[in-house]
């Protein structure tokens, strides 16, 4: 008996060795590509570092500078506006289309793939360049508007509308949350809808009392994910504004300002501090989401 236990233990240990060996490349990547740069960034956030000379420790100097940096606060406002408008719109649109696709009709597979495509392209440089053309003074949007007798503008050069074009771009990449919602909708038992109908519930009541509560875990998941993504948005703002965050800083995302400070202003220490502030803020917001979720997210195990 103990001999058999001994043999089993040896086999297990051997498997463990192999598993750890397979984990080693990933661990190396985690250390070299994530943890070491993270630690370096944390150190640099307490230094005056211009990339061209050695870092010079200045304590909390970078963090205190943020309080008086007018453009920093402007970037914060622009980013928060972007998050608060584009994330709910994107999720609402994704849910709407998921519900349409859930009806099931001829060609659903094709539409599902077609609606998912923008998600793949959304953060690409190529699409951002095309977006500039679409919303330019001679772009497709103005061409369509002129057909119906509305005079267009250069949407990207108008501070009142430039950010809106980026919101539209983010909403347009609804495919990823839509697929998740669609999978969730398919999980809702049809009997629940049928028995609600028997009890006289209309579509709105069914949506509010059955669909939303049962879908709430996935809504929560998408909300957290898309909020984090929106805070980190960079490519679209950089390409559409040609790296300036203009016009007049109306598209100056936090990450874009961080990039400008690091690589154009040679203020890598200050940029590192900004990165850590972003990390903490996004972490706090995510924690807030988790805290609030106990009031509106319902899991099938009753929690």
């Amino acid at each position, binding site marked *: 008996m103990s001999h058999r236990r001994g043999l089993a233990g040896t086999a297990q*240990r051997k498997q*463990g*060795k192999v598993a*750890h*060996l397979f*984990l*080693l490349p990933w*661990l*190396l990547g985690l*250390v*070299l590509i994530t943890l*070491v740069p993270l630690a370096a960034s944390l150190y640099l956030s307490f230094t*005056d570092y*211009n*990339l*061209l*000379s050695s870092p*010079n420790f200045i304590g909390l100097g970078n963090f205190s500078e943020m309080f008086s940096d007018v453009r920093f606060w402007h970037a914060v406002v622009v980013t928060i506006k972007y998050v608060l408008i584009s994330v709910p719109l994107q999720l609402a649109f994704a849910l709407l289309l998921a519900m349409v696709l859930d009806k099931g009709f001829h060609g659903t597979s094709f539409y599902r793939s077609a609606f998912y495509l923008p998600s793949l392209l959304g953060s690409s440089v190529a699409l951002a360049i095309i977006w500039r053309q679409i919303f*330019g*003074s001679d772009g497709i949007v103005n061409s369509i508007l002129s057909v119906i007798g509305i005079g267009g*503008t*250069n949407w*990207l*050069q*108008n*501070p009142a509308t430039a950010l809106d074009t980026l919101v539209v771009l983010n909403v347009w990449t609804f495919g990823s949350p839509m697929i998740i919602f669609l999978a969730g909708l398919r999980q809702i038992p049809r009997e629940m809808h049928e028995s609600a109908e028997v009890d006289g519930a209309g579509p709105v009541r069914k949506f509010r009392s059955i669909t939303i509560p049962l879908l709430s875990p996935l809504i929560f998941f998408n909300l957290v994910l898309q909020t984090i993504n929106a805070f980190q948005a960079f490519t679209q703002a950089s390409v559409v504004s*040609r*790296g*300036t965050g*203009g*016009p*007049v*800083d109306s598209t100056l995302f936090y990450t874009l300002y961080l990039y*400008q400070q690091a*690589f*154009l*202003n*040679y203020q*890598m220490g200050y940029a590192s501090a900004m990165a850590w502030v972003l990390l903490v803020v996004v972490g706090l917001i995510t924690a807030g989401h988790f805290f609030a979720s106990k009031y509106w997210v319902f899991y099938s195990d009753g929690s």
Partner: protein
Amino acid sequence: MKELSRRTLFRATGLSAAALALAACGSGGTDAPTKSAGSTSTGGGTTGQAGGASGSVRYGFWGSTEREQLYLDAFKSFQSKNSGITIAPEFADYGAFQERFATQAAAHNAPDLYWIASPQVMTYYKNDLYYDLSSLSDLDLSDYTSDQIESFKLGGTLNNVPQVSSTPIASYNKTFLDDAGLAISDADWTWDGLAEFLIDYSKKAKGRKGIAYNANQDLSFEAWLRQHGQMLWTEDGTVGFDTDGIGGWLDWWEKLRKAGAALEPAEQDGVDMIWSTAGSKAMMIFCGVNEMVDQAPVFPKSDFELRTLPVAADAPSGWMFVYYSRIAMYKGIKDSAIAAATKVLNFDLNDPAMIKPTLSIGAPVNPRQLKAAADTATPDQKKMLSVMVDVGGQKQNPRYEAPAGTSTWRDDFNRTIESVALGQSSVSDASKQMISTLTANIQKAKG
């Protein structure tokens, strides 16, 4: 075999990571530059060269794909005559080049020879990125006068050499002008006179405006300041203009824009106009004389001419100036690469094969190359050369490079102009804000 536990695995990971990091720090790239003892902001210092002229020389530069090809062809020519030396080009678009160079410099791995953007000249000098070229006994500057060489120095040290020169001009589409039945007169070639002419043109031209809104053209702005008794930067590295100086410039542009004589920023894809958009809508732009050479071919059906900028009635003599684009050797270059890099630099500055590529940037600074360039220049390039020869012969008051901390002064300038043109700020407030921002950045860079 000893059991592989989690503890052992993590220990192995940490040791492997450390070994890889040490290997990466020790291999490839160039040596980290070292400051001489007691130095604070020096631009050069390491002397001497070792080894024969062979090996690979990294050459960093920027521009269009056409320029890249011209340089690659010239490098091929060099390499065919110098079989032991390979030039490794590191080319990128202007913006991307600056950002990449910053990262390379941070890694102590900048190219052996590299072009210097004008806002960065003093920043790189302050951070000791320049090799002392006067220590290179094989460097051939025999074509330059001693006064020229003296004028190239920063802090008394020859740490970079201007390759090309440029000056601001007014470039105009003569075809557009002829279509409107108008001609530019020499009689009132002042700022006010030009403004009136542009307003008149815009009224008569069908659907076109007099000038693109390029108030952000930095060389023209500098010319304006010099004509009004001010300068862009002072010798001691401070802002050389006041609110009246920049305010007058912005007022001139706003007058044109409000009169419909200058494009709106929305019509030209922003304050930093896109030429292919603006060039079809406006008759005139201000630009560097070298830029006109690239811009003209975009509209092949139009004939472009150029003039020097208008002159204020009370402009002091010597307001004209020449802008230099410079090349330097990296302070941290490997000793073994110095001799080869010196040969490449000599080729870059002196060899006739470099005339054509150099003309893609501006007029050669080398007097012999400048004379020879006329033989191979295109008609537009000949116009450029003619202007540079003319300006070069005029009196020029001193001019100073942008101080450290002003790497993004053009972006600040763009934002200032945007805020005025889009009605977000008055000229007065925008001018004060810009001067305040530049001053703060300069102070911050001083440490």
